[in-house]
């Protein structure tokens, strides 16, 4: 028996049902763009996106394609190429529900699930409109006598478990361990997700656990439900340590996405590519 499940991208997409809570990695973590393309082709609906802690072209494309009903995030942006136009318009017109958050809160909610505790406290944030608009967050008075400042107001965040996480990485080894380098937030996402699928550039005939360096920078196969080999699977986003982002293409997208008709036109080509 093979030590891990090898899937096609389509088989991963088949696992994504309408309405699920989907984990979205940041642009620096390995964005699964080939998967995203197939997901849009499938015509999935009412996805809830949970970004750790932000999204760029992936989230904007899914929103522009009508696949999203809700997004929890610290930001949606095209970075040097400006605002994320499909996201901005969808929020302005009330087409999607926006749960504005902040990076450390998005991390902490998943860390609560990692530890299987119902909530996680976080300092700061109190008194901001981000906090005031989150009815699912609570403020308590610090109950500890031995640590912190007594009666200090402190924010509690609920544990969040993702239904599915999909990300793109450089390599899997022969046992299905995934090389994630310093992008440890991918481990946080995976630990807090019911199912995890990974697209990789290559499966290499080695065992990451044989060496201290590669063992410390991999995500163990125990958290992974399926792997698919996809060359350039993050394009046009970058894959840290492997290739840079295709800035020409992202620029092209940023211009096309300014209106829905030119976005639709762009996507026709993109989905075929």
């Amino acid at each position, binding site marked *: 028996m093979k030590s891990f499940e090898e899937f096609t991208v389509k088989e991963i997409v088949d696992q994504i049902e309408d309405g699920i809570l989907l984990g979205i990695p*940041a642009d*620096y*973590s390995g964005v699964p763009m080939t998967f995203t393309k197939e997901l849009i082709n499938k015509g999935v609906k009412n996805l809830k996106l949970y970004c*750790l*802690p*932000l999204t760029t072209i992936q989230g904007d494309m899914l929103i522009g394609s009508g696949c999203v009903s809700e997004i929890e*995030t*610290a*930001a*949606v*942006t095209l*970075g*040097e190429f400006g*605002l*994320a136009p499909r*996201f*901005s*318009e969808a*929020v*302005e*017109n*009330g087409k999607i529900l*926006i749960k*504005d*958050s*902040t*990076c*450390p*809160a998005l*991390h902490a909610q998943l*860390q609560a699930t990692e530890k299987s505790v119902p909530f996680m406290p*976080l*300092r*700061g*944030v*109190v*008194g*901001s*409109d*981000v*906090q005031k*608009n989150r009815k699912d967050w609570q403020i308590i008075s610090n109950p500890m006598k031995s640590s*912190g*400042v007594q*009666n*200090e*107001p*402190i924010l509690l965040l609920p544990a969040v478990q993702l239904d599915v996480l999909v990300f793109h990485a450089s390599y899997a080894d022969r046992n299905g361990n995934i090389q994630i380098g*310093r*992008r*440890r*937030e*991918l*481990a*946080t996402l995976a630990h807090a997700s019911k199912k995890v699928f990974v697209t990789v550039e290559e499966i290499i005939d080695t065992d990451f656990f044989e060496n201290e360096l590669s063992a410390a920078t991999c995500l163990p196969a125990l958290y992974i439900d399926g792997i698919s080999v996809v060359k350039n699977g993050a394009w046009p986003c970058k894959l*840290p*340590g492997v290739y840079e982002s295709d*800035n020409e293409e992202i620029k092209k997208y940023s211009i096309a996405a300014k209106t829905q008709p030119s976005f639709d036109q762009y996507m026709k080509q993109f989905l075929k590519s």
Partner: protein
Amino acid sequence: MNLNIKREELLISQLADLLKNDNHVAVGAASPIPGAAALLAKEEAKNFNKRLRVTILHSNKYNNFTDGARELFDCAAQGRIDTFFLGGVQIDGNANINLVGTGEYPNVDKRFPGSFGSPLMYFVVPQIILFREEHSPRTLVKNVDFISAPGVSDDNIYRPGGPKYLLTNRALFKFNKKQKKFSLYKLNMNETLDSIIELTGFDFDVDKNLSEMDFPDKTRIETLRKYIAPMVSEFYPEFANRIWGV
């Protein structure tokens, strides 16, 4: 002596002056001018036999973190970051910042990316420098439409950090925490107190030592152009190409 100093270079130089006493400066998303200033301050600190650490989040090379994206926030909460930069679609006279949008929340008139890490960073980093190039009544407003992070907090809130300065392309303000008010501290070339009053949407005090921004000397501008520009091009290629043609 005419060094043909660009406006961006003057801002970089001005910011570098504010980082002289730091041990660790971190720079967040979409911040080429603060990034260049931090690297310049790091280079100059060597002349005083000082070690300044710089973390540029969007760079793999100029980065001190290995524990994932949460490490920045944990590190800041531990008090290990002395200076961080924040921006805003709107900044008001109480130093409240808005990174979310203008108009009534949630379906705002114009939506911007979001609050990023500001709701925590503003509370825990001792020196927050607000940086917004555009200096106009639409960016510097009486009251922000949405508070991504408040400028000041009640006394019972844990808050070792907060705003110290606001830099725009026209002026540098200091923030007075007790009075909850900015005071005008330095003017960019060709600006006057009157021009700043006209273009600022909030009331502010005037520092008794109000002066013009200091021009970088020849050594500093050479360091910037020769050593720092190529570094900046690694993580902000478009900016470095536009300013220095590298």
